[in-house]
C-alpha cells in the first residue's frame, strides 16, 4: 500500500493505535471473566495472525500449515515447564529457535528444489499433519493424552509466566501490540520493501539485487518463530496441550481467518479480522451446543470467508480506511460548498 509521507497523518495513526490499546486494556481490567477469556484468544490469534500475515501479505509465501509452528512453540514451553520445571520464558525462546529452524529448513528444502506457490502451501499442510501424527504417537510428549499444566493458583509469577485469566489477557495484549508495531516497523524498513518486491515479482526483484532465496527463508523463519511464541502462550492459557488441537488444521484456519477477513498485508487487519471472526466462531459454537447442532461455527466461518473474498477482497480494514477517507472528502467538499455559497 502506498505510504503517504505526511508527518501529521503519521502521528495521528500512532495516536489512534495507542488509543485502541488503551481501550483494550480497559476491557481487560473491567470486563467479566467470559469476555476476558474470549478476548485473550482474540488477541493471541491476532498476534499469530500477524505472523502469518508477515509471511503472505508482505513476503508473498502462502502457508496453510502454521499449526506446525504453533504446536512446536506450545510443546517447547509445555515440555520444559511440565517435565523439567523450567520457566516458560526459556520455553518460549526454545520454541522460537525450534520453530524458526524448522521453518528455515522447510523453506530451504522447498526453494532449493523450486517448490513454490500452491505446491509450497501443500507442503506446509503435509508437514503440519505429519508432525501432528508423529506427536500423537510420541510418549515423551504425552502422545494422545497430551500434557497438562498444573492448575494456576491465581497468583501472578512473572518469572514463571503464571497467573490468572486477567494476567494472560495482558500478556496477549502485549503480544498483539508487539505484533502490530513489529509489522509496521518491518513494513517501513528495507526488509518491507525488499520482501514486497519479492512477493510481487520474484524474478524482477532478483534483477534488482534482491537475494530472494535468503529473504524467503528469513521471512518464513521469523513468521514461524513468532507463531511459536503465540503457541507457547496459548498452551499456558489453555492449560493443556493436545496434538490434535494444537497442531491440527483448525489452528491453521483460525490463524489465517483474521488477516484474510481483516486485511492482508496491513498492520491492523489481523486485529480487526480476529475481532470479527473469533467471537462469531465462539458464539456459533455455543449456539450449536445449546441447540444440539454442532457445525454451526464451521458454517459461520465458511460464510464469513466467502463473503469477505467476494465483497471485500482486500479485507474489512482497508474498506474501513477507504470509507473513512471518502467521508472526509465529502465533508470537506461540503464545507467548501458552504463557504462558496456564503461568498
Amino acid at each position, binding site marked *: 500500500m502506498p505510504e503517504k509521507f505526511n508527518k501529521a497523518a503519521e502521528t495521528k495513526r500512532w495516536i489512534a493505535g495507542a488509543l485502541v490499546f488503551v481501550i483494550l486494556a480497559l476491557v481487560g481490567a473491567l470486563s467479566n471473566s467470559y469476555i476476558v477469556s474470549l478476548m485473550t484468544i482474540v488477541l493471541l490469534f491476532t498476534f499469530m495472525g500477524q505472523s502469518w500475515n508477515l509471511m*503472505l501479505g508482505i513476503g508473498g509465501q*502462502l502457508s*496453510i500449515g502454521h499449526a506446525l509452528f504453533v504446536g512446536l512453540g506450545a510443546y517447547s514451553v509445555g515440555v520444559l515447564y511440565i517435565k523439567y520445571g523450567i520457566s516458560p520464558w526459556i520455553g518460549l525462546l526454545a520454541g522460537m529457535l525450534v520453530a524458526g529452524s524448522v521453518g528455515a529448513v522447510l523453506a530451504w*528444502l*522447498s526453494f532449493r*528444489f*523450486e*517448490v*513454490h*506457490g*500452491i*505446491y*509450497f*502451501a*501443500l*507442503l506446509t*499442510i*503435509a*508437514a503440519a*499433519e*505429519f508432525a501432528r*501424527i*508423529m506427536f*500423537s*504417537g510420541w510418549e515423551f510428549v504425552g502422545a494422545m493424552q497430551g500434557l497438562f499444566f498444573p492448575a494456576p493458583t491465581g497468583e501472578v509469577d512473572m518469572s514463571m509466566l503464571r497467573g490468572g485469566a486477567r494476567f494472560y489477557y495482558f500478556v496477549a495484549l502485549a503480544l498483539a501490540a508487539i505484533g502490530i508495531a513489529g509489522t509496521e516497523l518491518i513494513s517501513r524498513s528495507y526488509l518491507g520493501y525488499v520482501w514486497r518486491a519479492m512477493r510481487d515479482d520474484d524474478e524482477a526483484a532478483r534483477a534488482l539485487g534482491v537475494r530472494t532465496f535468503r529473504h524467503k527463508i528469513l521471512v518464513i523463519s521469523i513468521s514461524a518463530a513468532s507463531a511459536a511464541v503465540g503457541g507457547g502462550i496459548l498452551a499456558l492459557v489453555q492449560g493443556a496441550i493436545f496434538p490434535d488441537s494444537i497442531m491440527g*488444521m483448525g489452528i491453521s*484456519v483460525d490463524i*489465517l481467518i483474521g488477516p*484474510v477477513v481483516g486485511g492482508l498485508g496491513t498492520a491492523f487487519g489481523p486485529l480487526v479480522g480476529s475481532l470479527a471472526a473469533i467471537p462469531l466462531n465462539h458464539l456459533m459454537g455455543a449456539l450449536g451446543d445449546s441447540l444440539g*447442532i*454442532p*457445525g*454451526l*461455527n*464451521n*458454517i*459461520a*466461518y*465458511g*460464510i*464469513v*470467508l*466467502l463473503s469477505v*473474498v*467476494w465483497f471485500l*477482497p482486500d479485507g474489512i480494514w482497508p474498506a474501513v480506511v477507504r470509507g473513512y477517507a471518502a467521508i472526509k472528502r465529502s465533508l470537506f467538499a461540503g464545507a467548501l460548498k458552504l463557504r462558496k455559497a456564503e461568498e
Partner: protein
Amino acid sequence: MLSLWLNVLASGILIGLVYGLVALGLTIIFGVMRVVNFAHGEMVVFGVYIGYWSVRMWGVPIIAAAALAAAVMFVFGYFLEKLIVKRFVNRPHHYQFIVFIGLSLLFSGILLVAFGPDPRPTASQLSFRTVSIGILTLDLARLQAAGVAGLLIAMLGAYLKYSSFGRSLRAAANNRLGGLIVGLNIPRVYAVTFGIGAACAGVAGALISPLFDAQPYLAMDFTLLAFVTVIVGGLGSFGGALLGGLTIGVAEAVAALMFSPSMKTALPYALLIIILIFRPRGFFGAREI
C-alpha cells in the same frame, strides 16, 4: 507369509483404484481450470453420506447409490462452479485457496448439522462378505468398489479421448485462449469439468461407504489423500491420477503391515513432502503450475 503379503497388496490395489477415481476428479479440475479444489474431500464425504442414506433409507444396492451420487454431485459441482468458483478462477493462488477453505468449512458444517458428528456405518449386504480367488481372500465390497471405479475411469478416459465435448475439455486444458478463439464455450466447459470432478469424488465416496463409516471429519483426510495421489501421479495428468492412486493404495497397505496403524496415516504426508521436494511434477505432471 506370502499369502498375507499378496492379500495386502491386492487389497491395496483395489482401494488404489478408488483413490485413483478420487484423484481423477481433482486432476481433471486442475488440468482444465487450473483450480485446486481444496474442498474435494468434502465432496467425497458427500458421496459417502449419499451411500449411507440410500442404503439405510431405501435399502438399494451400493451401485445404485453410486449412480445417485454421480448425478447429484455432478449437478452440485456444475452449479457450484457457475455460481461461485468461476469468479475466482483468475485470481491469485492464495485467494483460490481461501475460497476453497471457506467452501470446505461450509460443507463440513452442513454435514455436521445434517448428520451430526457421530460416525454412521453403512452396513450393506456386501459389507462382510468375502470372495476367494486362489490364495487371495478379498472383501466383496472392496472388489465391487474397485470394479466400478476402474470401469468409470476407463469410461471417462474414453469420453475425454473420443467424444467431441471431451476433446473440448482437453483443448481448454491445453490452451484456454486458443480455445476461446476457436469458439469453445469455455464457461460451459468449466462448469461441466467441475461437475465431472465432483461426480468422481461423490461416486468414489458412495462406493467406499461400506468400508468407511460416514462422518464429517473424514473430509480433510480425503482431501489430503487426493492431493498426495494427484501430486505423486502428476497434477493434471489422467494416467498419473490412476498410477498415483495405485501407488498410494499399495503404499498405505504395505505401511499398515510393516509399521503401526498410526504410521499408516502419516505415510501419505511423508510421501507428499518427499515428492514435493524431489519431484514435484510427480510421474507425469506438467512443469509449471
